[in-house]
């Protein structure tokens, strides 16, 4: 494969997408585990509401999510203005793309993790408690190791979804090469230019390869999770 199979601009879009997805996964992982655990194990008022909120990005038109992000995290937005004062700018930066990707992929990650947590026998956690483990230790030494493959599966799925995020990103952050032009935005741009179909096609192949690879890995990890939990 020649080195110029992808143009430097295309490579930039692929690298940016990988960077955005990586940080989106890394930052949402702890919150995802916590949310999945809360939804699977705890009974508290507002549980239904939390469940709905988590799933909202899956249901809403991505444009709406992007617009809401713009309203909230834009430079004039309630949170955005405050963040700018402490030196964090999200609008029209790759960090904003990571936020958008994290939020859009969050429901997928939480669903995968929640399923694996629900598969863990709570009686094992009870046994750990009678052996002297306080709840945080029960989680770290029993629950977490048992759901680790499930968490990885959720993270891989999250990563794939984050790479593909388009609607919310382009609404929230526009389409700036090197800052917010991720892989899907780049494909979209190439398709608007006459004669760039071949270029777009190569990016499409990259996108397909990444997605299918992630799906296979996620599936394999889920099976490993099931094997591990079965006594």
């Amino acid at each position, binding site marked *: 494969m020649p080195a110029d199979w992808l143009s430097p601009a295309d490579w930039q879009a692929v690298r940016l997408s990988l960077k955005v997805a990586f940080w989106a996964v890394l930052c949402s992982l702890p919150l995802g585990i916590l949310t999945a655990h809360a939804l699977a194990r705890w009974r508290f008022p507002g549980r239904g509401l939390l469940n709905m909120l988590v799933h909202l990005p899956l249901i809403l038109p991505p444009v709406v999510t992007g617009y809401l992000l713009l309203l909230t995290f834009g430079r004039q937005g309630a949170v955005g203005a405050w963040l700018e004062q402490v030196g964090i700018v999200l609008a029209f930066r790759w960090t904003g793309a990571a936020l958008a990707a994290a939020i859009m992929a969050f429901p997928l990650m939480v669903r995968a993790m929640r399923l694996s947590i629900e598969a863990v026998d709570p009686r094992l956690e009870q046994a750990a408690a009678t052996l002297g*483990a306080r709840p945080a230790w029960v989680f770290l030494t029993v629950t977490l190791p048992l759901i680790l493959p499930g968490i990885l599966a959720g993270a891989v799925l999250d990563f794939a979804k984050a790479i593909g995020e388009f609607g919310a990103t382009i609404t929230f952050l526009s389409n700036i090469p090197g800052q917010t032009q991720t892989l899907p935005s780049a494909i979209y741009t190439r398709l608007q230019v006459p004669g760039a179909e071949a270029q777009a096609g190569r990016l499409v192949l990259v996108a397909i390869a990444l997605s299918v690879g992630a799906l296979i890995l996620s599936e394999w990890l889920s099976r490993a999770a099931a094997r591990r939990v079965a006594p």
Partner: protein
Amino acid sequence: MSLSVRIDHAWPGFSLSVDVTAPPGVTALFGASGAGKTTLIRAVAGLLRPDRGRIAVDGRMLFDSDRGVNLPPHRRRVGYVFQDARLFPHLSVRQNLLYGRWFAGAGGGPTLAQIADLLGIAPLLERRPAALSGGEAQRVALGRALLARPGILLLDEPLAALDQPRKAEILPYLRALRDATDLPILHVSHDPQEIRTLATTVLRLEAGRVIAQGPPDAVLPLPQNAGVTLRATPRDGPGPGQWVDTAAGVLHVATRATGPLRLRIAADQVMVATAPPAGLLGATILPARMVGQADGLLRLAVGTTHLLARAPLDPALCPPADSAVHAVLLRDPTVLDAIGCTTDSPSQND
């Protein structure tokens, strides 16, 4: 060390109300399913919060509704062995055993080597729980609970899920454990045989209440249908009914007969008198000799055969072996059937 429990707990359709103390040694909780046995030990472990009451181990208050004390399970130092061993599938046997020890911190108590030796699990240490048999898994669970340095051991029917050979494999280990420790051990079971093998005290529960407490032979029901079957042949005699000759002597039955009979003398129809009884109307008194005692029953040599009788509640009252006593039959024997019988030796169907 001892355990004292006084709790009240109610659900719709069921209530538990007990006030008991368990001395060191094995205290068996005996009763049918739903009598409240598991509820009681779950309350001791802190897995269930009773409505009212107090629970203390060795003077250490685990739960006191009046003073608002309710220690969480991980601070109760209670060794709980569940019916399903509940070993951690992602840890090796060795890691399972040491799990609780890590939280118990430094201090005395048995070592891993001692426990592995006591329970015969040393060859299993590097295995995964999935590769253990039911009996092995239960022994590992027992060792894991012991190594957490508990103040009390709770055994929630640890043998109930095992078949007879596996039970027989574990019982000697439980006996060795009982004799090697001064922990109070609460042992939930509905198997009288298992309890007789292990327990020093029995609490008999029924519908959430303690209906009896004492040594196993005093509290456990007699083995069902304990008694002997005798062959009898009719003989002449006065009055209604029928006199018969048996290996135990001349007896009377209610029905007329012309040919051989089989009779049943249940253990709870036979009393033992150490002095010649007098003035008992309607009872048959036979000279007898003490043979021995087992499972809450006395075995008596009567005539050329044996009869079974209920043992006295206080073992001190039990006549010495080979002493002369009197077997008092409180009722006429039951006629089983009038056809030929194959044996006149004592049988005990339990």
